[in-house]
């Protein structure tokens, strides 16, 4: 996606009115025909985007301001859905659960990803194998079947519970315990640290070796080298990962839904935002309220993203001054 954007920026459109004083009409026509062909080739995507993304999004924006039960036509109620939301204890609970999940899960995942990436960045035997092995969970982690496996692992009297009980710490399985079950979801996301790890690895590879050599000559220890060279040099990659993982984890749904056996319980302890949204929309048929919730989530994610972008001035180091 990133590369596509850059190419677009670099290669300005073919018929841009540049220093071409006046190309013959035939050339102009050919240019236009090429454009047309381009749009034609893009049309399946454009149609898909309009029908499956833009259209439904516009509709959901409208529904957000209505009372809509799927059967009767929507009734305009202005901001009622939003005010009702703020007063709804279950909505507040869902915000709390989601915030907890994002705030605990994302940093843990990134720390682990960075840690393992640092280990794997060094050349050693079987390097490719380790990288693949650590990356594998990211490929399958989002699937429903892994959710079921997780549920089985963390149930009462299952592997985790027995191990824990062996050390005299019996919580009776995480899945049924409202104080614990969210952490099983955190564990599931942390376990999928492979994707950010690969990105970190790519970032680490690009840090010039000379910098480390110079620092070593100056007498910098490993920690100092990490702090003063590695971290600033990979800060753009870190920023990218923080952004990606934060946005991603706000949208957690599948694992909460499967691990809680489709209830988002017990006692609403896994009632993540999208799960409540789903319940409101598809169980209770309050589509207006659910749409309003979706837009509220979009706003929240946009806000967090904006804050991250604003903060990058302070800690993200884009290496350009040297040139």
């Amino acid at each position, binding site marked *: 996606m990133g590369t596509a954007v850059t190419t677009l920026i670099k290669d300005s459109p073919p018929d841009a009115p540049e220093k071409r004083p006046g190309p013959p009409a035939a050339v102009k026509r050919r240019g236009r025909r090429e454009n047309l062909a381009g749009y034609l080739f893009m049309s399946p995507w454009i149609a898909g985007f309009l*029908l499956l993304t833009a259209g*439904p999004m516009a509709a959901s924006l409208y529904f957000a301001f209505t009372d809509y039960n799927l059967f009767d036509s929507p009734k305009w109620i202005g901001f009622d859905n939003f005010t009702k939301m703020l007063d709804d204890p279950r909505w507040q609970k869902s915000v709390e659960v989601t915030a907890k999940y994002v705030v605990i899960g994302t940093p843990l995942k990134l720390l682990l990803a960075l840690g393992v990436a640092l280990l794997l960045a060094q050349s050693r035997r079987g390097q490719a194998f380790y990288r693949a092995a650590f990356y594998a969970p990211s490929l399958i982690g989002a699937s429903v079947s892994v959710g079921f496996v997780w549920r089985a692992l963390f149930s009462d009297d299952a592997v985790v519970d027995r191990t824990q009980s062996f050390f005299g710490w019996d919580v009776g399985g995480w899945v049924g315990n409202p104080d614990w079950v969210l952490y099983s979801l955190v564990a599931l996301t942390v376990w999928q640290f492979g994707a950010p790890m690969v990105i970190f690895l790519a970032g680490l590879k690009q840090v010039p070796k000379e910098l480390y050599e110079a620092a070593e000559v100056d007498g910098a220890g490993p920690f100092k080298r990490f702090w003063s060279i590695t971290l600033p040099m990979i800060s753009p990659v870190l920023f*990218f990962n923080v952004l990606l993982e934060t946005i991603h984890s706000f949208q957690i749904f599948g694992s909460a839904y499967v691990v809680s056996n*489709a209830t988002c319980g017990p*006692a609403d302890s896994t009632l993540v935002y999208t799960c409540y949204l789903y319940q409101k929309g598809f169980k209770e048929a309050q589509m207006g309220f659910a749409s309003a919730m979706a837009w509220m989530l979009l706003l929240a994610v946009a806000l967090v993203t904006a804050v991250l972008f604003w903060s990058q001035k302070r800690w993200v180091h884009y290496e350009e001054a040297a040139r």
Partner: protein
Amino acid sequence: MGDNGSVERRTVLKAAGASLATLGLATTTACGGDSGGSGGGTVEIRFAWWGAEERAKRINQSIALFEKKYPKIKVKTDFQDYVAFWEKFQTQAAGGNPPDVFQNAVAFLRKYDKRSVLLDLKSQVDAGNLSLENFRAGVEKVGEVDGKLLGIPVGSNTMSLVIDEKVFEKAGIKPKAGWTWDEYFDALEKIRNTQKVAGDTGYFGIMYLYDLYLRQNGKAFFTEDGLGFDEADLTEWWQDGYNRVKAGIITDPKKVEQNKPKSSLAAGDAGSEFTWDNFTVRYATEGDSTYGLAPIPTTDGKETGQYLSSLMLSGSARTKHPKEVAQFIDFMVHDPEVGKIMGYDRGILATTEQFDAYKPADAPNQAIAKYEEDVAAAGVLGTITPHPAGTDTVEAAFLRIAGDMSQGKTKVSDAVKQFFSEAETALAA
């Protein structure tokens, strides 16, 4: 590192970040559906129900018989578990594409009648495609709402108390008809004291049981269009429930969650559980003990508040084949062979043809038959409680909020307030 390298990297990263940020998330869902086509003189109808594998097997056998008798009608089937079924059905119905014929329950009649989803089967009865003859007493009116015939009962069921017979025997308790709530809770205490097993799996979250309790006291859970009790009533019911959890005579709610989808009764963490009598077959397959059906405790020593409810078959108002739908329903509720195949899986067979054809051979099914016989003989059966539109949502909220309350996650007073607020929304929708 090359000159271009880092510049490029920077641009890429910035661009990637920016495009990510603008991507956002569209959480809307579009749904489409397929329509059952027909050709060559044969008609295809779609039939959907909720249930497990076992029910699916029986239904498929029944359909094979139906298709043999009506070779021009093909039945396409679909099934999920209860919750998933109604989610899917709601979406299909909203999209104007519900199955032609489907399993239904009392709680959903008004909800979907209000939205003109249900076929009034009266005209099909008049046309002679569907017979209302030979329904057993007590169930024949279950599918009638406001003068419309919206569902045809397939079997009757009633709330019951399932007990672990070994546990009750060891504690020296013999439940008998007309026993009171005090006697029931004393029994639970005795069970806890003698066998270190909590008694009940959590009676206070079951809407249909609270309904019976209210009916014993001259009220009911629902009126025609709202709730038939007030906050003080529910506060008392839940406060007592909470105290009993704390006293250890009700199974620890955490344990109940952990045992799911198994019942805590079958898991050996309880001595009794209130549920519909036709559900009781599951305990014998899930657990190792022997399970029996006991009378519902009473307030005055006589009235249990019980009534006969029923699963039904309903048609879609939008079906293109109302006649075939009626013929299918007629076959499924009257054909004796179907009765033999289905057994009491969906309650005690509703028509005399099927009831007489099926003689249960196994203990659990015999027990169900005897239970409903006894209840009918005791003369405690009343008329069914109204089920306004929104009943399903209210039932789910009742169970969920009672669970939060029993776990100590919500104060009883807050729980009661929350329930009334959610119920109001659901019933107004």
